[in-house]
């Protein structure tokens, strides 16, 4: 770390930061939502249109690093759309227009000069339905690494094992790495997809209803995993399950018809929400 001096050194390795760097290297312990953990992912005045239909309306949100942020709201309110904006997956849909500002760390996500491939490596994504490739378990996890040009078998093996361990799947699959991923159970497939994302060392993990296609046991394992992972990653989870949001997230964002209604500490959100709409939603009056 550079010491603050009146004259900055000519060459700085660190990118410019809005806040002064913390005195220690990153805190490994999860911090409370009120803690000083810096914003990792942010949207400012984000509008998104599918053709003429506006799916996001002036959404502004600041997601702190190394925490779990849940996005809740009724079906069709724009949760997935917001999530997919952070790694520009919406680029794949024709006729999408997006305006406003999105940042991950120091990167301007929407800038024309931003390398989407690099962005997506840094901002990983786990989808609603487990979607492993029809390849072996090993090749699924090694995929992203191979695409980055990693060929050394030894290193691949080390990284695949490491990713599978982090996704709490290693013990279940270590004896059948060369078997097809399609033969795994739904819950295992989803953890494999998480391992696959972790292998390319992202900073952020976006999860779109990662457990909605799974049974309760598999869901519980995914939830545990999410709690484990926040020590190393910034996690944003879309869920329509409010109990799940309450169990796993530090902060919760409530969306309704394309608008971000409220964003707050999860405990406060579920006990004393500020907005009437939020209260109505979490008490089950609509949605």
């Amino acid at each position, binding site marked *: 770390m550079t010491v603050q001096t009146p004259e900055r050194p000519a060459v700085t390795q660190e990118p410019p930061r809005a806040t002064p760097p913390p005195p220690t290297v990153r805190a490994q312990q999860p911090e409370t939502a009120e803690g000083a953990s810096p914003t990792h992912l942010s949207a400012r005045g984000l509008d998104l249109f599918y053709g003429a239909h506006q799916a996001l309306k002036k959404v502004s949100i600041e997601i702190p690093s190394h925490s779990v942020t849940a996005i809740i709201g009724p079906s069709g309110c724009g949760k997935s759309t917001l999530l997919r904006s952070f790694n520009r997956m919406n680029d794949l849909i*024709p006729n999408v227009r997006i305006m406003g500002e999105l940042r991950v760390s120091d990167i301007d996500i929407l800038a024309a000069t931003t390398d989407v491939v690099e962005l*997506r490596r840094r901002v990983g994504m786990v989808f609603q339905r487990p979607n492993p490739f*029809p390849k072996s378990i090993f090749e699924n996890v090694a995929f992203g690494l191979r695409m980055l040009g990693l060929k050394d078998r030894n290193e691949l093996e080390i990284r695949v094992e490491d990713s599978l361990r982090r996704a709490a799947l290693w013990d279940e699959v270590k004896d059948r790495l060369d078997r097809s991923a399609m033969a795994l159970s739904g819950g295992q497939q989803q953890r494999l997809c998480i391992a696959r994302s972790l292998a390319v060392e992202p900073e952020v993990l976006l999860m779109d209803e990662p457990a909605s296609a799974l049974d309760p046991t598999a869901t519980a394992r995914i939830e545990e995993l999410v709690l484990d992972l926040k020590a190393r990653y910034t996690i944003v989870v879309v869920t329509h399950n409010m109990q799940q949001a309450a169990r796993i997230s530090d902060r919760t964002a409530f969306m309704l018809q394309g608008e971000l209604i409220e964003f707050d500490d999860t405990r406060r959100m579920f006990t004393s929400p500020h907005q009437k709409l939020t209260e109505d939603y979490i008490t089950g009056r609509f949605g």
Partner: protein
Amino acid sequence: MTTGSRPLRPGHDAAAFRRHQILRENVIAWILRGCAFSAVAGLLLIVLFVFKEAWPILGDRVTQQEANLAGFFSQPLWQPVSETPKYGFTPLFAGTIKVVLVSMLFAVPIGVLAALFATEFASPRLREILKPCIELLAGIPSVVLGFFGLMVLASWLQPITHAPVRLNAFNAGIALGLGIIPTVFTVCEDALRAVPKSFREASLALGATPWQTAWNVALPAASAGVGAGVLLGLARAVGETMIVLMASGNAAITSGDVFDSARTFSATIAAELAEVVVGSPHYATLFFLGALLFLLTFFINVAAGAFVDRLRRKLAGA
């Protein structure tokens, strides 16, 4: 069922209507059955006819004195109308292999990559133009492709390849390839379109480039269909006659050089059957060639089916 129910309107005899309906269903079912069976019967008749005419090669002593299995495979020359007829398959076999190989090497990469482009890269608008164009190529009668190979392609290619003769295996292979591209393209395109979008999303979300996604995810996931497309293309290449007849030069010479003229099994039958004496050893030999050709394409088709099944099961994780 009808006894207790109330009539829909006064005077509507539900029972009579139902009787009529059943009769009509039965008649329709019989007509459909007849159509299906007549197609099968046609196939059986053709096979029976071809094998019957080829039979003397295996079962008739007089024919065997002039044309027999041992001769087919040991005799190096194909000269069926000379003083002492020679029925060596070797030159025809060499010609077939060369032409088919050239056509496949030309058509498979183009067909597969064009399908990959259409499904993975082209905008919906471009795809809507591209697809019918390539499929139109399939609608061009092979005699037209043959004519094109004979008159146009040969004149273009010879200055490039410096082949000793205008019409040669390479020329025929390229012309034939034009006829096969649509087969490969169409089957591959279908297979690629059937690949779930979720695979591509997963790949892109991992930081793979569009090309990496197309090549490492979409294509392998569609491999069963791609394999089937290639094998169907192969079956068509082996059986296709008119194009090779017109564009290959038709010289039955045993040579490994693709720039020599060549004659294939199919072109041989087409060229000689019209002038042959019915029932002669030459006639039986041509039918024997036809039977071989039939068996070959039949097995390629069976292999295509088995291949697709196996890959499908493998991809599904069995």
